[in-house]
């Protein structure tokens, strides 16, 4: 009886094999094709690694993700800490309020930033009215706008993973530490921070990794200044029709994603 039950997984696994795994192999195959139809070649990859444009593109994509991850951490950690340790009754409501926006449509979210940040838009009008600046900040179509949009999209993940880790930290431990004479900072550094480490690492994973593959936010909020690997791949497929080269860049992106996941997993497993 049990031996039959496991076959229930077959339809789902088949769908994943046919529509998620097989396409990746087809993409790998295309990435080795030459545009001239001369069979297999490493040229697509060579172009990527030899042209400085693509290397600096890779670096700026990684840099973008690092910025977004760091800023998310700076916002998310205190927020999660306050929710887990300081707020009492309302923390569940705040948790829900933080979850809601990232279940809103990606395009709607990006579009709302577009309206908000546009020259002479609400943000400029607000800053003008309180006399912080005059005229316009001209934020839209800069890297800053891309980072603002991406942090907005991803930092809730980090709040939740860190919150779940901090919630498990026993308050008695913190009290014991302070009654043994540790300062608040010491207690934080020696107890709270190490115990919330798994939450921080999952948070980094859930922000950094998806950030590498975005193209919608960089394209719409960054304009020409928002070029990242994702937008270049999109161009290869929709504007330039360099499908084989596009496939090879997509594979390099996938490799970056898998490497960063494994590194973060490895860091999480240590000790």
């Amino acid at each position: 009886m049990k031996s039959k039950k496991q076959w229930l997984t077959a339809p789902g696994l088949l769908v994943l094999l046919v529509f998620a795994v097989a396409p990746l192999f087809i993409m790998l195959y295309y990435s080795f094709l030459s545009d001239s139809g001369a069979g297999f070649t490493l040229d697509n990859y060579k172009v990527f690694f030899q042209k400085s444009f693509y290397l600096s593109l890779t670096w700026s994509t990684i840099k973008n993700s690092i910025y977004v991850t760091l800023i998310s951490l700076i916002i998310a950690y205190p927020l999660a800490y306050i929710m887990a340790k300081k707020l009492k009754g309302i923390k569940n409501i705040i948790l829900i309020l933080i979850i809601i926006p990232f279940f809103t449509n990606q395009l709607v979210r990006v579009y709302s930033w577009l309206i908000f940040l546009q020259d002479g838009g609400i943000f400029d009008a607000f800053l003008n009215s309180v006399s912080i600046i005059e005229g316009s900040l001209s934020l839209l179509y800069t890297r800053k706008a891309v980072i603002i949009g991406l942090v907005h999209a991803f930092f809730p993940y980090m709040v939740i993973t860190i919150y779940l880790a901090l919630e498990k930290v026993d308050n008695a431990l913190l009290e014991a530490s302070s009654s043994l004479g540790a300062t608040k900072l010491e207690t934080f550094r020696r107890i709270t921070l190490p115990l919330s480490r798994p939450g921080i690492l999952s948070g980094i994973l859930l922000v950094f990794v998806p950030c590498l593959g975005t193209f919608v936010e960089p394209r719409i909020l960054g304009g020409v200044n928002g070029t990242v690997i994702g937008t270049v791949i999109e161009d290869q497929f929709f504007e330039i029709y360099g499908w084989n080269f596009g496939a090879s860049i997509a594979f390099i992106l996938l490799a970056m994603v898998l490497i960063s996941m494994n590194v973060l997993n490895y860091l999480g497993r240590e000790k």
Partner: protein
Amino acid sequence: MKKSGIISKAFVIFALIYLYTPIVVLMVMSFNSSRYNQMPFDFSFKWYQDLFQNNVLIQAAINSIWIAAVTGVICVILATLLVLGSQALSGRLKNSVQTFMLMPLTIPWLIIGLSILLMIRALDFEKNLFFVLAGHTVISLPYSVLVLQARMQSMDPALEEASASLGANVMTTFRRITLPVLAPAMVAGGFLSFMISFDNFVLSYFLMPSGFSTLPIEIQSSIKFGFTPEINAVSTIIIGISLLCLAIVGLIMGSSIKSLFGKKEV
């Protein structure tokens, strides 16, 4: 102590303002009669009225809804089978199957979309709705799986054993014990997958046959090719639908919604 309490509250409020301001501005602007989101604010339902006369947007909405509905149903069926079946596995095989079920979460949607596009080309097909549904299913399936797994793990295995030892056959045990326990999670998982598909832009963008669009695609082309003022109203309605789905999932799953995030541990 008191001072740090005020700083804490201020920080929370600041974060919530950051999260909500653009969305709220968008929703408010959908009721502003100005075409280019200009002030002063002049309340009107004009864009909503226009929206209901805009056939392109209505068709896109219908497409979005039925694609998401079909995706949701397929995902629930596949996820239920996957979760039930993987219970019967053990050891490393079980681990690998469970990791594999969630694999699409780790691959950027851009890459999933492109690779399916390349598969369509390799097979020499035209883009068609079958592949759109397949793509949506691949990315939405893990969410149903997560919800169902969370529910399955909270179920006491003794229930099934008791039923079997009292003489119920496999089908009866499934129908009378397992299914009622899983049913709420099936509904919740279905709505979650519906929402992921309904909101998805990337997969639709790569796989949609020409002349066929969904709401996210309409928003994108409005951004790209020129402004359609009804988009604010459409966006507000989309947010409303997402919130409704989320509320349903939340009501059914209660506090175990948190376990969705706990699952994705490093």
